[in-house]
C-alpha cells in the first residue's frame, strides 16, 4: 500500500485557525455529545409518553401511539432531517419560516429535534414492551388498592418497566450518538464532519478516520460502563434485574 502515513498531522495547525487538527476533531466530538444528549432527552420524554399511550385501554390513545411510532419508524432518518430542515420552514406561515431559517445554530436544533423524535419511536416501543413484560397482577393490585391510572403508572408500572428496559435503552442511546453523524447532511459540524474536513484539508484520509473511529469507540465504552453502574445502582435486590 503506497499510502503516505503521517500520524503527526494531528499536531499540525488546522486551516480554520482555532488550533491544530486534534482540537478540530475534539470540538466535533463535543458537538456530537451535545447533540446526542439533547436528542436523547427529547427521545426519552416523548418516547415514554407515547409508549404509555400505547398501553392504555383507550382505543384513541393506543391508536395515536401506534400511528406515531409507524410515522417515525417508516422514514429514513436522513429524509426526516430534510423534512425538518428544508420543508418545515416553507410550510409554516411566512414570518415563522423566515425566523426558522435565520435561527443561529439551525442545524443543531434541527438535528436535536429530528434525531430526538426519530429515536422517540424506538424508545416508545421499548417502553411498551417493558410495561408489557410486567405481570398483569401488578396493575390489578394497584387498581385494587384504589390507585388512579396515573398513580398506577407513576408508582407501580413505570419504575419497574424502566428498570427492565435499561439495557435496551442503553443501546438506543448508543444509536442516538451514532445517528448524530447523519446530521452532517444538514451542515452540523460534528465528529464525522470534522474528520471529513480534516481529510479534505490535510489529505491524511486514514489518520483522520482512524481518530474519529477511536473517539467513537471511546464514547461507546464510557457509555456502556456508566450504564452498568446505573443498572447496578437502581437494581432492586431479589427482583428481576436485582442480583
Amino acid at each position, binding site marked *: *500500500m503506497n499510502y503516505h502515513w503521517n500520524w503527526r498531522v494531528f499536531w499540525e495547525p488546522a486551516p480554520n485557525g482555532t488550533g491544530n487538527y486534534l482540537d478540530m476533531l475534539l470540538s466535533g466530538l463535543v458537538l456530537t455529545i451535545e447533540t446526542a444528549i439533547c436528542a436523547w432527552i427529547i427521545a426519552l420524554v416523548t418516547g415514554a409518553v407515547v409508549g404509555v399511550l400505547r398501553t392504555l385501554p383507550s382505543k384513541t390513545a393506543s391508536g395515536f401511539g401506534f400511528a406515531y411510532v409507524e410515522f417515525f419508524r417508516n422514514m429514513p432518518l436522513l*429524509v426526516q432531517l430534510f*423534512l425538518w430542515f428544508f420543508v418545515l420552514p*416553507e*410550510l409554516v406561515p411566512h414570518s415563522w419560516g423566515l425566523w426558522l431559517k435565520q435561527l443561529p445554530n439551525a442545524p443543531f436544533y434541527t438535528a436535536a429535534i429530528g434525531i430526538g423524535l426519530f429515536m422517540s419511536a424506538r424508545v416508545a416501543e421499548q417502553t411498551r414492551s417493558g410495561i408489557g413484560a410486567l405481570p398483569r397482577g401488578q396493575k390489578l393490585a394497584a387498581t385494587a388498592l384504589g390507585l388512579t391510572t396515573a398513580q398506577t403508572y407513576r408508582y407501580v408500572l413505570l419504575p419497574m418497566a424502566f428498570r427492565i428496559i435499561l439495557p435496551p435503552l442503553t443501546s438506543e442511546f448508543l444509536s442516538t450518538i451514532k445517528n448524530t453523524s*447523519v446530521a*452532517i*447532511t444538514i451542515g452540523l459540524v460534528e465528529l464525522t464532519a470534522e474528520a471529513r474536513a480534516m481529510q479534505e484539508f490535510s489529505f491524511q484520509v486514514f489518520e483522520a*478516520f482512524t481518530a474519529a473511529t477511536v473517539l*467513537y469507540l471511546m464514547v461507546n465504552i464510557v457509555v456502556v460502563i456508566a450504564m452498568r453502574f446505573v443498572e447496578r445502582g437502581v437494581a432492586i435486590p431479589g427482583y428481576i434485574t436485582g442480583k
Partner: protein
Amino acid sequence: MFANFDFDVIRRSLGYLFFDGMTFTLTLTSLATFGGIIFGTSIALMRLSGVWLLSRVAGLYVDLMRSLPLVLVIFWFYFLVPYIGQWLTGASRPIRVGAFASSLITFTIFEAAYFSEIMRAGIQSISKGQPAAAQALGLTYGQTMRYVVLPQAFRNMLPVLLTQTIVLFQDTSLVYVLSIPDFLGAASKVAQRDGRLVEMYLFSAAVYFAISCVASFGVRRLQARIAFVH
C-alpha cells in the same frame, strides 16, 4: 401553504426517480441483504465455533461495526476500497471503484455485523438435541449446519431478518453523503436543480413511508403465520 405546490415537477421526474434512483436503491438493498446474510452467517458460525481465536475475531468485528456510525463507515470504505483493490490486484496505484461497487461493499460488510447477531440468536435458539442427533447420525459439522441447524435458524429468524432488511433499505439513503443518485439522491438533485425542495422531499418521504409500511405489514403477517405453525 400548498398554494404553489408544484405536482408537475414530480410527474416530470418520475422516470428518473424510479428507473434510475429507485432501481439503484432496491438493487443495493437486495444485494447487500443477500451478501450480508451470507457473510453474517459465517461470522455467527465463527463466533459460536468454540475456537477461541475465531470467536474473538468475530466478536471484535461485530462490536467494532456496531459502535461506528454508518456515515463514518461509508466514508471509510469509499477511501479504503481503492487501496484494498490495489493490494488485491497488485496494481501500481489505487484502483478506481464505482459508486455502486463501493456502496455495495460498505453495506454488505456493515450490515453483516447486524445480520450475524440475528443469525447467532437463531442458531442458539435451536435445541441442543438437533445437532446432537445429527452427530449421532454421523453427519459432519458442515452437514449438521447445512442440513439441520441453519435451515431452522434461518426459518425462525426470517421475520427479524426481513425487519433488518427494511432498516437496510432506509439506511441506503445515506449514500447521499457520497452524492450518489439513489432514490433520495435523485430526488435531491431534481429538487436543487428546479428549486423544488418541498415537493421533492415530501414526495420521497411519502415513497419511503409507503414502501416501509407495506413491507413491515407483510413481515407482521408472516410472523403471525410462522407463530401459528409452531
